[in-house]
């Protein structure tokens, strides 16, 4: 597969003419990346250890070393912004949640137009257009992970009313987190969204708009005794796997990844309720002051290729971010994926999270 990828890359490289305006041709870019730069630093805030192993394939194929520092989501973004005034920064490639793009000045990123043309790549995810500065490399989806030994598929809750009925009939059998991961927030926000007329796709926030979710807040308080709050995404899945819960809020890729390495039971299943839950993914961009811009472009080209996207699907359970990639290893069908909702826009999303903590969590 890698040979095919490299052959394709080489073919494209050989057939791509030099760009006008003094830009390097892809062939020259590749040569520069391999012979002059020799390394690329990828700031990605999750799965660092597993990505270090995975990107070894890129190093084996190109000879370019991939360095992945540890760092969390906001810290990596803050770092890029903080060092944007420097002529040369530390970040070659930055990974970030798709919903963060509108909050970052796109002028800080270099254009990815130099990459070989590939119509299968995705630069517009859940309505957030990456333009020519961002490409999707990781598709993910929140939903409900469940233990099929305890609940039949036809009994799975699909609406807020269904969840309330399940909680009442099975006190303490469902858990979700409100911090340390987005699966729980996705769950409660979609309940709040379904029980209100508020537009979660509009980031504008005001006290009047926040008052629109009063009904949902009351819903959670009314049923507070019958659901559990967990400590994190991982805590939810671990406790589901241990038999403590019947269902928990979870990320599809997180769950598939843990199942693949045997951390949680592989008989656990995942679904997206009919009310919809948030999904999206992650973009990669190259800061304008990247220390190794040629190697960074080569890396992004590799990361967003159909072959790598297929491997991501097989190893991590992601939704592939390339039209020609194989998605047969996903936990949900394409039909069910239609239920995907775009993440609530910030700053309204932050305001809802804060209100949920203030008026639901603090009342427990």
């Amino acid at each position: 597969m890698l040979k095919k990828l490299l052959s394709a890359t080489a073919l494209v490289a050989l057939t791509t003419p030099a760009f006008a305006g003094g830009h390097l041709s892809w062939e020259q870019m590749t040569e520069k990346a391999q012979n002059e730069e020799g390394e690329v630093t990828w700031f990605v805030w999750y799965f660092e250890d597993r990505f270090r192993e995975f990107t070894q394939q890129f190093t084996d194929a190109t000879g370019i070393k991939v360095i992945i520092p540890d760092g969390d989501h906001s810290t990596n973004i803050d770092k890029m912004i903080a060092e944007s005034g420097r002529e040369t920064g530390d970040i070659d490639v930055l990974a970030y949640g798709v919903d963060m793009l509108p909050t970052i000045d796109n002028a800080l990123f270099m254009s990815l137009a130099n990459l070989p043309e590939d119509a299968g790549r995705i630069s517009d995810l859940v309505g957030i257009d990456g333009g020519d500065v961002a490409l999707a490399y990781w598709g993910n989806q929140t939903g409900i992970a469940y233990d099929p030994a305890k609940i039949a598929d036809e009994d799975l809750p699909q609406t807020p009313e269904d969840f309330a009925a399940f909680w009442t009939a099975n006190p303490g059998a469902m858990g979700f987190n409100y911090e340390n991961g987005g699966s729980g927030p996705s769950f409660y926000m979609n309940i709040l969204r379904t029980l209100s007329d508020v537009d979660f796709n509009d980031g504008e926030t005001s006290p009047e708009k926040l008052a629109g979710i009063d009904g949902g807040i009351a819903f959670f308080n009314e049923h507070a005794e019958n659901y559990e709050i967990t400590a994190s995404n991982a805590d939810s899945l671990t406790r589901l796997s241990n038999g403590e819960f019947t269902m928990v809020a979870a990320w599809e890729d997180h769950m598939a990844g843990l199942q693949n390495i045997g951390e949680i039971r592989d008989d656990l299943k995942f679904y997206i309720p009919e009310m919809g839950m948030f999904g999206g993914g992650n973009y990669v961009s190259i800061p304008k002051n990247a220390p190794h811009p040629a190697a960074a472009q080569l890396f992004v080209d590799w990361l967003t290729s159909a072959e790598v996207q297929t491997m991501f699907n097989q190893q991590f359970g992601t939704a592939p971010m390339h039209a020609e990639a194989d998605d047969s290893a996903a936990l949900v069908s394409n039909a069910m994926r239609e239920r995907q909702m775009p993440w609530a826009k910030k700053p309204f999303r932050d305001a809802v999270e804060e209100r949920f903590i203030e008026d639901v969590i603090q009342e427990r």
Partner: protein
Amino acid sequence: MRLGRTATILLLLTPGIGLIVFFIGAVIYIAIAQSFGYYNLLGESGYSLEFWETLTGRKAYARSVRYSLYVGFWSAILSVALAYPLALWLRKPFTGSLTVSAILKAPLLVHGIVAAFLFLNVISFHGILNQFMVWTGIFDEPRRLQNDDNAIGLLFLQVWKNMPFALLLLTGAVQAISDDVLHAAQDLGAGAWARFRKVIAPLSVSAMQAALIIIFIGALADFTFQTTIGPTNRQSLAQYMTFFKERGRWNDAAVVGVTLMALSLVGAIVLAAAARLIFRGRLR
């Protein structure tokens, strides 16, 4: 002449203490300034009381303050209270006392996050504790013990981790008390409690103060234990600060940070003064 000597001493101290004062001072200055609206990384900067007013009106803030003080206070008190009898027991060497002492201090070598996950495994729904309780018939079925609302598990872990540190400080202090003093007290009719209350505690109060202060500050600012095994219906101040920081709300994070620093300072002074007042009857 005297001024020159003072200046010389200050100059000599500057490379060491000066740097510490500069760096700590800079951090404290930035945090305080940010809490009043300055150094806003993502928006307009300027003097504002808005961040203090908004946050202090929140239930989550008030609850975080109360909860962190609760954890800090009880961690310090329980650790010291448990360390005292052990320090007295180990005051005079006996066969195996070195081994006992080493075992008691072992938690110092275990990193907090490792201890938290180990503890989580023990108390989890199908963990050893639940299995044992079900096996003995005390529990009919496994119970949900992790992330308990009263932070009992968290306090247990704080004491497990901090007691050896208190023991380390107190052992030295009680070993420094001569047998003559204790024998004299005994001759005068002092029982075990009176000897502790009127002789041992007053003579080791400095070590007690150091242990109380250091454990209090550490537990007050706890993040690791809280996010792993702490209650999920309240946040520690460190956790609350991180909550804002992760959302790029540096000014709000600074308000919580300054609160944490102020509480550390005030709490440490109160604990130290109370210990001295209770066991020495005076502040000096």
